[in-house]
C-alpha cells in the first residue's frame, strides 16, 4: 500500500478538526449500527440477507464526504454504509431491516434496498452490477439538466464481470458522462477470491483503460487517500464531464452475508486478523487523528459509546414500529395509482 501522505493534500488540509471528528464519527456509527443489526439478525428478528459493510467504512464515508448539493450516489446491496454516510437516520434504516412501516422503504425493500432520494441516494440494488447503468443514467440526467454534479456509483470486485458494467463504461466514455465508478475491492465475491473470478493484469480498474477512461487504485484503509483520489475524479467529472473508474482496496470482516458460515474456509483467519490489526480504516484514522491532536482516546471512546447507544435505540425503535399490513402490499407499485390521478382510474392496473 502507498506511502504518500494524503493528509497533506489540499482537500484534506482544508478539513477542520470538527469535520475530521465528524468523519470519524460517521465511520464509527456505521460500525456500531451494523454490529447491532448483526445481533438482531442472529436473534432471528430480521428476514432475508444481511450484508455487512464492516471494514469498508472509509470508502462510503470518505467518498461521500466530498459530495455537494448536486452529487448523487447509488450502490449495490451492501448499502448500509452509504445510507448512513449520506445522512439517513439509524432509525429508518434499522426499521427497514426489521421490515417495518417506518423503515426508509416502508419495509418493502429490506437491507439491500435503502433509498433516500432527498439525500441524493438512489439505493441499494440487489442484482450484481444492475445499478451500474442506473448510475450512468443519474449522471446523464445531471449533465442533461445542466447541474454541476456527478454520480458516484459503487460496485464490488465481483460485479466487474457483469456485461452491464462494460456497456456502461463504453457509453460513459463516449458520451462524456460525469459518473465515477467506485469498485470497492474487498478481495472476494462471496466465496470467490479476485483471482478466481476475474482475469486481469495489474488491477480491475485497468479495464477502464481500453475505453479511454481514467482510473486509479486507492488504499481504502486511509480515508485521506480515499478523499484525495476521489476528489480528482470528481473534479474531472464536473470540469471535464468525464468518467473515472476508482478501485478502492478494502476488506470485509464478516462473511459475504451474515448467513455465510464458510467465510473462514475461503480465506484464513490470519488474513482477517491482519486486516483488522493493520488496516482497519477506523483504527487507522483514529491513530492519525490522535497523532494530529484532533482526537483523544477519551473522545474516541465517547464517540463509540454514543454511536452504540444510538444503534441500540434504533433497534428499540425498529422493534416497536408497526409492521406493514396487507393493504400496504398493493401501494408503491405505480406512481399514478398512488397519486390517485385521472390516469389511474382508467382500466384495471391490478389483477387477482
Amino acid at each position, binding site marked *: 500500500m502507498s506511502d504518500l501522505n494524503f493528509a497533506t493534500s489540499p482537500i484534506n488540509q482544508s478539513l477542520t478538526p470538527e469535520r475530521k471528528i465528524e468523519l470519524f464519527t460517521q465511520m464509527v456509527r456505521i460500525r456500531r449500527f451494523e454490529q447491532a443489526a448483526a445481533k438482531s439478525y442472529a436473534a432471528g428478528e430480521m428476514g432475508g440477507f444481511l450484508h455487512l459493510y464492516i471494514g469498508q467504512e472509509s470508502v462510503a464515508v470518505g467518498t461521500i464526504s466530498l459530495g455537494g448539493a448536486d452529487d448523487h450516489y447509488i450502490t449495490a446491496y451492501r448499502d448500509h454504509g452509504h445510507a448512513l454516510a449520506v445522512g439517513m437516520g439509524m432509525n429508518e434504516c434499522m426499521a427497514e431491516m426489521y421490515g417495518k412501516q417506518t423503515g426508509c422503504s416502508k419495509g418493502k425493500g429490506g437491507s439491500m434496498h435503502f*433509498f433516500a432520494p432527498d439525500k441524493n441516494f438512489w439505493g441499494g440494488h440487489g442484482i450484481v452490477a444492475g445499478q451500474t*447503468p442506473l448510475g450512468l443514467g443519474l449522471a*446523464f440526467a445531471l449533465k*442533461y439538466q445542466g447541474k454541476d454534479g456527478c454520480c458516484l456509483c459503487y460496485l464490488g470486485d465481483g460485479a466487474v464481470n457483469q456485461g452491464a458494467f462494460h456497456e456502461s463504461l463504453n457509453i460513459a466514455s463516449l458520451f462524456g458522462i460525469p459518473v465515477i465508478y467506485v469498485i470497492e475491492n474487498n478481495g472476494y465475491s462471496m466465496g470467490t477470491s479476485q483471482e478466481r473470478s476475474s482475469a486481469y493484469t495489474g488491477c480491475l480498474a485497468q479495464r477502464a483503460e481500453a475505453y479511454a477512461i481514467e482510473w486509479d487504485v486507492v488504499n481504502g484503509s486511509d480515508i485521506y487517500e480515499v478523499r484525495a483520489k476521489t476528489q480528482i475524479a470528481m473534479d474531472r467529472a464536473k470540469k471535464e464531464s468525464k468518467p473515472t473508474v476508482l478501485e478502492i482496496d478494502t476488506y470485509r470482516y464478516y462473511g459475504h452475508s451474515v448467513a455465510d458460515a464458510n467465510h473462514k474456509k475461503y480465506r484464513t483467519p490470519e488474513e482477517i486478523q491482519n486486516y483488522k490489526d493493520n488496516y482497519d480504516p477506523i483504527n487507522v484514522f483514529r491513530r492519525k487523528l490522535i497523532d494530529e491532536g484532533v482526537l483523544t482516546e477519551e473522545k474516541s471512546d465517547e464517540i463509540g459509546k454514543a454511536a452504540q447507544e444510538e444503534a441500540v435505540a434504533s433497534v428499540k425503535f425498529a422493534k416497536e414500529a408497526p409492521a406493514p399490513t396487507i393493504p400496504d402490499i398493493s401501494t408503491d407499485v405505480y406512481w399514478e395509482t398512488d*397519486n390517485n390521478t385521472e390516469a389511474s382510474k382508467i382500466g384495471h392496473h391490478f389483477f387477482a
Partner: protein
Amino acid sequence: MRTLTYREALREAMDEELARDENVVIMGEEVAQYNGAYKVTQGLWDKWGDKRVVDTPISEAGFIGMGIGASMLGVRPVMELMFWSFHSVAFDQLVNNAACVRYMSGGLCHCPIVVRGPANGGTNVGATHSHIPEGLFAAFPGLKVCSPATPADAKGLMKAAIRDNDPVYVMENTILYGNTGEVPDPADGDFVIPLGKADIKREGKDISLIAHGRSVLHCLEAAETLKAEHGIDAEVLDLRSIRPLDVDAILATVAKTHRVLLVDESKPFGGVSAMVSHLIQEHAFDELDGPIKRVCTIDAPAIYSKYIENEQLPNPRRIIEKALTMV
C-alpha cells in the same frame, strides 16, 4: 380529417412531446443521424439536435438502464429498441430496475420512461427477431404496456405514454408503420388516448373477436368475410392497452355476444389471451354460451420462410375457420 401513416403518427406524438417538455429525450440505436432503422424518428434529430435525439451504441442493457436512471431524476426518456425482441439483452433493466425500483424504495422513486419499438412477426426475420412480448411485460406489476393498431391510436397512446409517470412499454409493429388512417389535426387540440381504454373497432352481436395490435386488423378483415359470406355479425374489441386493461369493456362485449374468440400474435402458452380468457371465464362464466377459443401463433419459434410465416401467425383465414366452429 387528415390522414397520417402509423409511422408519422408516432413521430408527430414524439415531436409534440419534445416541444411540450424539455425533459423529453429520444434515445436509441440509429434514431438520430440515421433517422431510425424504420424511420419512425425521421427528421427529429435535424429539428431537435444532439441533446434531444441521441444515438446510442449497441448496448441495450447499458442504454435502457441509463434511461431508467435518468428518469429517476426527472428526465423523460423515450427509448427505441430497434426491435422489441432485443428486450432479451436488456431484460434485467426492463423488469427489475424499471418495474421494481418504486416498490423497493417504498414509493420514493418513480420512472417516467417510455420504451418503444416494433414487436411483431411477419417480416421473415426469424425466431430471435420476432418475439411478441406484450404478455411477458404486462405480467410484471409496475410496468404498463400498450399496443396500438391504428395511426390515431399510435399517436394518442404514445402521447399518453410519454406523459405517464410510470414506465410504459409501447409495442409497435413494422408491418403497420406504412398504414394510413385519420388522425386529428393538432390545431384541433391535444390528442391523447388514455392507457386502459379498449375500443370497439366494429360493432356486432354474434361473437366477440378480442385482439390488440395488428391482430385487430386481421379481425376486422375476418369480420367482413364472416358477415358477407356467413351472415355472422362479429364485434371487434381492440384492447389497445394491455396493462392497465379495460376489463369492463371486455366483460361488456362478452355480455353482448356470449361467444369469445381471442386473437393474439403471441405463442399459445400464456400470452395476453390466456389472461383475458381466465378473466372472462372468472367474471362472466354464466354469460358464455361455449368455451372461449383462441387463434395464436402456431407453437414454434418464428419460422423464416416467407411462404409459410403468415400461416404461423394469426390471419383472417385462421380466424374465420375458428369462428365458424363457434357459431
